[in-house]
Every structure is written in C-alpha cells, then in structure tokens.
C-alpha cells in the first residue's frame, strides 16, 4: 500500500495547479474551476488522513469530506449564477474587467 506521504504530495501538486489557474486565467469560469480543484485537493487530504488514522471507525474524515462536497456544490451554483448575471450586465466575464466596485 502507498504511504500517506504520496497522497499528501499529490494533493499539494493538485492544489498548486488549481492555485496557478486561479491566479493566472482571465476567464472567471476557469477561475471557479481552479477553486474546485483546490477544494478537491483538500478533500483528498481528509480521506487520506482518515484512512491512515488510528481510529478510522469514528468516520470523521469521511463525514467531513461529504460535508465539504456539499458546500462546494452550493458554492459552484451560487458562483456560476453570479457569473451569468455579470455576463448579462457586462457582456464579458474576464476577471480583469470586473472593476465596477473599484476594489
């Protein structure tokens, strides 16, 4: 069986790919996809730590991952709804044009 390290290293790599996408892409939908990748990397960590824990019968990691999946689904729905509205108002969804609120 693969040691716990390998899963953690893989999840670090997946997280950084998502982070690079969030920071570099112009299209807001791909930015949201990058956020999903980062959330999934965190989920993999929950499951890996659960599998290698001393008391896996407590199910903490599994339940945490399930709740995290639910929250990510809600986040994706609201985020994409905001993007559709933004596109309707501006005609474009490039993140560097989103400066209406002068942030």
């Amino acid at each position, binding site marked *: 069986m*693969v040691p716990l390290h390998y899963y953690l290293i893989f999840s670090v790599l997946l997280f950084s790919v998502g982070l690079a996408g969030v920071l570099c892409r112009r299209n807001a939908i791909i930015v949201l996809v990058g956020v999903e990748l980062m959330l999934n990397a965190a989920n993999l960590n929950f499951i890996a730590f659960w599998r290698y824990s001393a008391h896996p019968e407590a199910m903490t990691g599994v339940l945490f991952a399930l709740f995290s999946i639910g929250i990510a689904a809600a986040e994706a729905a609201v985020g994409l709804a905001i993007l559709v509205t933004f596109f309707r108002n501006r005609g474009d969804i490039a993140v560097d044009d989103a400066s209406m609120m002068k942030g």
Partner: protein
Amino acid sequence: MELAFIVLGLLTLTSAIAAMAMRQLVHCVLCLSVTLAGLGGFYLLLNAEFVAFAQILVYVGAVTILVVFATLLTRGGNPEVGVAIFSSSWFKGIAVAVLAAGSLLFCVLTTSSIQRPLTAKPKADVKMIGDKLMTSHVLALEVIGLLLTAAMIGAVIIAMPERPKESKVEN
C-alpha cells in the same frame, strides 16, 4: 496498489494542468471532469467507497454540467484568436503557486508525525455513515440542508433577469 496510484495520479494531474491551460473552455471543462473522476478513483483506493460515489454523482455529474451550462450561457466557449487567456501578471501567479507548492512540500516531507502505519481495512459502509450522520453529526447535516436550500434559492434569484419597475409606478 502502487501502479494504480501512479497511473491515477498521472492521469489526474495531467488533466488538471490541461483544465487550467487549454484555450477552448469546453475542453477545459471536459478535462476537469476527468480530474474529478480520477479523484473518485483515489477515494476508491483509500476504501472510502461512499465518498467516491458521492464524488462521481455530485462533481462529475452535477458540477461539471453546471460549469458547461455557464460556459455556453456566457458565450465563452470560443475565445477569439489573439485574445489572451492568461492575465497580464501570470508570472506572478505562477511564482505564488510554485512558492505555495514548495513550502507545503517542505512541510509534508519534513514532518515525521505523519509517517503512520496503515491499519487494517476500515469498515465504512453506508449504514455506518448513516448512523453517524443521524446521531453525532445530525446538527451539521441539518445545517448543510439549510445551506443547500439557501444556495438554491439564492442562485435562482441572482440569475433571474431583472424586471423593469414601471408597472409599480403606473399603479
């Protein structure tokens, strides 16, 4: 087991990089679905079958379709030739990502307390998960139900087209 890990890891990581780097948005979303399915495979390797199937149902099924719909609704699927897909400060973003990866990898590789022996295959069937959800984690379950309802209503209200207000003025 090692071979399955390596194959799944390569597939998942390659498709994740493709999802972040490809020009056509629809291709990006297809690569994303491969990544999410690969993560479901990882959950199966880790004996978390229920989470793996929830991953397939929620992510590969629902979230990917949602992203495809948003892509098509925003006409972003076909960017014009010559328009940059990366922001002008992309090198800073790459630098931050590499820095984050480096520091996290350093932490993972130098921490000795995470070198744990593998315990026997844990029992994680649906009945046990349901028992836990309905007893010790029932409050979190209720809260997430409330959150999903609020998110659903919120998404519908946000995406609803704004009506002109003249009908109220006439009355």
